[in-house]
């Protein structure tokens, strides 16, 4: 199609406000935050005096004292949270999708039940699961502990998200948070896999059946390989959610005793907006941005290349 000059300019003018807004609010602000991260801004009044890597040194070396200890715990927590959260969402999401793909009666009802948590706020999820996992006391158990007490399984009672025990660097208190986050996003993974399964032509399965493949073999050798791109998308989407998670943990448990459930998002928020240590908060957020960028940028480039080839 040939466009006349007037329309070409008009097209550009329509796009321009959005481009400018995003240029400023995304890229300009990231640069600005970077500047703050290298500044001496500590207190309500901005102070852009150059501090070099000082704010990062406070996070990553023993010079930072308690802040460095906290940040180290945060990074370990993020690692384990992300690992288990992704694993649970992908495995159970895939399982539910495959089960629902077996010509199930009331498929719509089951689907609706598995997916409804996606429509809720992380704040609602956090509030409800906080109540469910609240441990209570040994004489007055609450939540799951009360349930365990009722069925006589008192030996399984523990302090859930207030527990300070750890296996290596993995704080057990993260388990309830991982369960709550998975509860909210398993349905999302399931929906992605289900859409993927539905897009696989029936002839492909038929052909495999004619060749004498069992249902298990069809899944193992035909269907699962075709779902790989979906797994990649799911991992990226869930991964970037878990790397920057804030609302859910902040509402459900907060930083926890001894930072057992702390994450960089909470550390950044408290440091910046409650402690007024702006430069320190900016440095935390830059580390968060780098973690997400490492995951997302290759994915965007990969997707984009694929699209250009099409």
């Amino acid at each position, binding site marked *: *199609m040939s466009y006349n000059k007037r329309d070409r300019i*008009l097209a550009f003018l329509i796009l321009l406000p*959005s481009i400018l807004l995003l240029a400023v609010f995304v890229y300009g602000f990231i640069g600005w935050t970077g500047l703050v991260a290298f500044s001496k801004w500590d207190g309500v009044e901005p102070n852009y005096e150059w501090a070099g890597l000082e704010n990062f040194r406070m996070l990553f070396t023993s010079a930072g004292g308690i802040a460095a200890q906290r940040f180290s715990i945060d990074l370990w927590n993020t690692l384990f949270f992300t690992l288990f959260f992704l694993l649970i969402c992908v495995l159970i999401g895939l399982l539910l999708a495959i089960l629902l793909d077996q010509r199930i009666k009331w498929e719509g009802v089951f689907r609706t039940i598995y997916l*409804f948590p996606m429509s809720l706020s992380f704040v609602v999820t956090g509030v409800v699961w906080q*109540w469910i996992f609240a441990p209570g006391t040994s004489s*007055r158990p609450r939540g799951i502990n*009360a349930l365990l007490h009722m069925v006589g399984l008192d030996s399984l009672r523990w302090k859930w998200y207030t527990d300070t025990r750890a296996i290596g660097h993995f704080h057990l208190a993260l388990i309830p948070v991982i369960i709550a986050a998975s509860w909210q996003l398993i349905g999302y993974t399931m929906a992605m896999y289900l859409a993927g399964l539905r897009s696989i032509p029936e002839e492909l399965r038929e052909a495999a059946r004619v060749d004498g493949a069992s249902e298990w073999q069809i899944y193992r050798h035909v269907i699962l390989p075709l779902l790989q791109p979906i797994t990649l998308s799911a991992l990226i989407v869930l991964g*970037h959610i878990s790397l920057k998670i804030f609302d859910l943990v902040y509402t459900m448990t907060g930083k926890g005793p001894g930072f057992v459930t702390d994450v960089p*998002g909470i550390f950044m*928020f408290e440091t910046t907006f409650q402690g007024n240590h702006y430069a320190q908060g900016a440095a935390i957020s830059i580390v968060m941005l780098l973690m997400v960028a490492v995951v997302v940028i290759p994915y965007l480039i990969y997707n984009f290349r694929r699209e250009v080839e099409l």
Partner: protein
Amino acid sequence: MKRFNPARLGIYLLLILFALVFLLPVYVLLVSSFKSFAEVQDLSRMWALPSGLYWESFRAAWFGIPEKGLRGLAPNLRNSIYLTVPATIISSLLGSLNGYILSKWRFPGANVIFPLMLFGMFIPYQSILIPLTQTLAAIGLGGTLWGLILVHVVYGLPITTLIFRNYYAEVPTELIEAARIDGAGLLGVYWRVLFPLSIPGFVVVIIWQFTNIWNEFLFAVTILQNPDLQPITVALRNLSGSQIKEWNMVMAGALIAAIPTLLIYILLGRYFIRGLLAGSVKG
């Protein structure tokens, strides 16, 4: 009728088991909300059904308990509506126009601009919060609902543009050619050809934006310090974080906060899922 098949029975049992686990929090939410204040204090009966339907938790969540210094959520629910409706409409309209230009009027540089726009929806918003609060304060929008609306419009642009771009890419180019031969210009094509075809696209985008903005917490808690202006998510978190915990009131509040998006999901789930999948399947 099929013969009895133990494998299929197993599948159904597994599906039902998972459904029960998924509904467990809903059960807790409902039974806690409908208990009386006296009943909810007895923690040993936390999992038991309420002895009757008591509405006092909802009344407390809605109006607050002034003598205990607990605020009601009604004004915050109203704030959420004032925030979500304009932000959703503006970001959807802008996304539609952007999507149209990017899908049908490819120009040099578009292939670079689009992924750069998309990156904006993945960033941890912590990394822009400090400049954001400074800028809003400088332009006189700090601590206001309009400031938060602006923020949601801007950071909603990547996803709304993406969904509409993919949606319009499916519209046959012949339709546009035909309109152009009839003398329609850039905006004429949009108004006469694409906009009338956009209703399903708008439903998807509006549901998606409404749900996200309604549920959002980080921007709201950072930008709005004034409790009279805060949306319901922030007020709910304040309620559950306060020293005096009236659990049935918190649960009833959570239910009130969840109902609008939950209703949309139940009534228009098909469109909700489309938005969900659009957010993950790029390009």
